[in-house]
């Protein structure tokens, strides 16, 4: 491992990397401060970074913002949980019933690439500008992410292990519990991680476009009111929440898989 010292791909020491990372963030901040101050971009279009941060701090003192954020996160959590349960149940069912995988393949291949935003008009008709609309979009979008991974996972069960289990006359439930589920779990977690990011995007999107309550609606209101600084502040907030969502899900994934013997590569599709 010491041999890699002179390579671009080699890891560097953690404090040095963290220092450089901070430097990168500082540079971004400095540029975002300097560009409007120097008049390179009209400050009405891009307020200085300090103004955005001040505005964000003011927003965070506002109870309404926390209510809106709570709405968004609730839609995110409920939608994600629903989608995961549905996808895992369906994935396991497809694996368990002979022939079902072949029969459903074409339908899944067709439905999966349908952009979730295509359902926005339908959601608006069915639920109006309410949380139901957000949930519909969140569930639809994250469902496919998990389902695809579950299907990869259950297909990955070692055939020899499968035959061993059958030769010992393990029942259907025992096979599921001790063979299929542990094999599929890393894939499921990958699916959940991908779905969590997608779910957050769709939650905000639905609020933004349909106007259901939440962070997205606040951004839309700020935009239509011409409050540019507030729009920026809320976008920064959305980004920070997104970073937090990714970090939490990754931590959960590591915990859940800490005991897992296999280290699996991520399935690209």
């Amino acid at each position, binding site marked *: 491992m010491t041999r890699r010292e002179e390579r671009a791909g080699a890891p560097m020491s953690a404090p040095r990397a963290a220092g450089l990372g901070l430097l*990168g963030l500082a540079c971004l901040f400095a540029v975002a401060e300097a560009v409007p101050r120097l008049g390179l971009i009209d400050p009405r279009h891009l307020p200085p970074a300090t103004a955005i941060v001040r505005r964000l701090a003011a927003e965070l003192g506002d109870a309404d913002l926390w209510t809106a954020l709570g709405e968004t996160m609730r839609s995110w959590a409920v939608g994600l949980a629903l989608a995961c349960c549905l996808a895992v149940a369906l994935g396991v069912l497809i694996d368990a019933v002979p022939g079902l995988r072949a029969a459903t393949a074409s339908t899944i291949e067709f439905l999966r690439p349908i952009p979730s*935003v*295509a359902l926005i008009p339908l959601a608006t008709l069915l639920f109006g500008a309410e949380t139901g609309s957000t949930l519909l979009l969140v569930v639809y979008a994250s469902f496919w992410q998990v389902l695809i991974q579950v299907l990869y996972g259950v297909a990955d069960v070692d055939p020899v292990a499968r035959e061993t289990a059958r030769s010992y006359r393990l029942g259907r439930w025992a096979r599921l519990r001790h063979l299929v589920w542990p094999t599929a779990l890393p894939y499921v977690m990958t699916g959940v991680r991908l779905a969590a990011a997608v779910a957050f995007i769709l939650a905000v*999107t639905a609020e933004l476009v349909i106007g259901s309550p939440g962070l997205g609606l606040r951004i839309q209101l700020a935009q239509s009111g011409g409050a540019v600084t507030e729009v920026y502040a809320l976008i920064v907030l959305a*980004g920070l929440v997104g970073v937090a969502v990714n970090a939490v899900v990754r931590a959960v994934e590591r915990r859940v898989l800490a005991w897992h013997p296999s280290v699996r590569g991520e399935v690209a599709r």
Partner: protein
Amino acid sequence: MSAAGTRPAGPLRRAALRLLRVLGLPVLLVLGWWIYSVAEPTFYLPTPGRVAGAFTEVWFSARITEDVLPSVGRLLTGYALAGLLGVGLGVAIGSSRALRAAAEPVLEFFRAVPPPVLVPLITLLAGLDTTMKVLVIVSGCVWPVLLNTVEGVRAVDEVLADTGRCFGLRGPARLRHLVLPAASPQIMAGLRQALSIGIILMVIGEMFASTSGIGHTVVLFQRGFAIPEMWSGIVVLGLLGFGFSLAFRAAERRILAWHLARGEERGRHA
């Protein structure tokens, strides 16, 4: 003789079974929808027949040239720009350890910003014209491409890189023969994510603030309670998504032929 008589039925039966597998469930689903919508007529769920009728009526018209093609054109323009930008920056950042460490938190942040929130922002900055819609698509699509390229370039195999150095592979030749091919599986994964984000942004850009495009038309139908027409718009969006995904997969099969075949080879020996 009888054996010879039954034998040709084999492939035929297999083909029939295959057809049944591919089409069976979709046909059942459409049939179910049809029966349901006839038995229990609701305002929101017209029969498949009416949707199909609205589809031909609405979309086989000037709308193709006025709404669909411009939408698709903007999507492709933005997507291509994002691809170039993402791969270019990604190669630069991925090749330098220090730059990568410095850029990582910034990129993590930008990736985590839900791309659709950029729509209102860019509307404020660039107005409602084509530039804004393309810009929206670029600003959303560039991150997955960029991040995946960085990762792919970073992970170029050490032995391969040494081999390249020994044989004097430098500059553009190194990029073309070593770095880009080695990173291509990752880059394609990024482009795939970017494509679905691009479609979403295309639709949202048009829904949010536009006077034309598929997204705009669909929302108009919904607001006017033209339900079969609205459904036909959803079908168009679905078909677009499906079509792009097919096209992408075909492109990927060509570009990553070596990678996919190698994976199969490994799977066989494993």
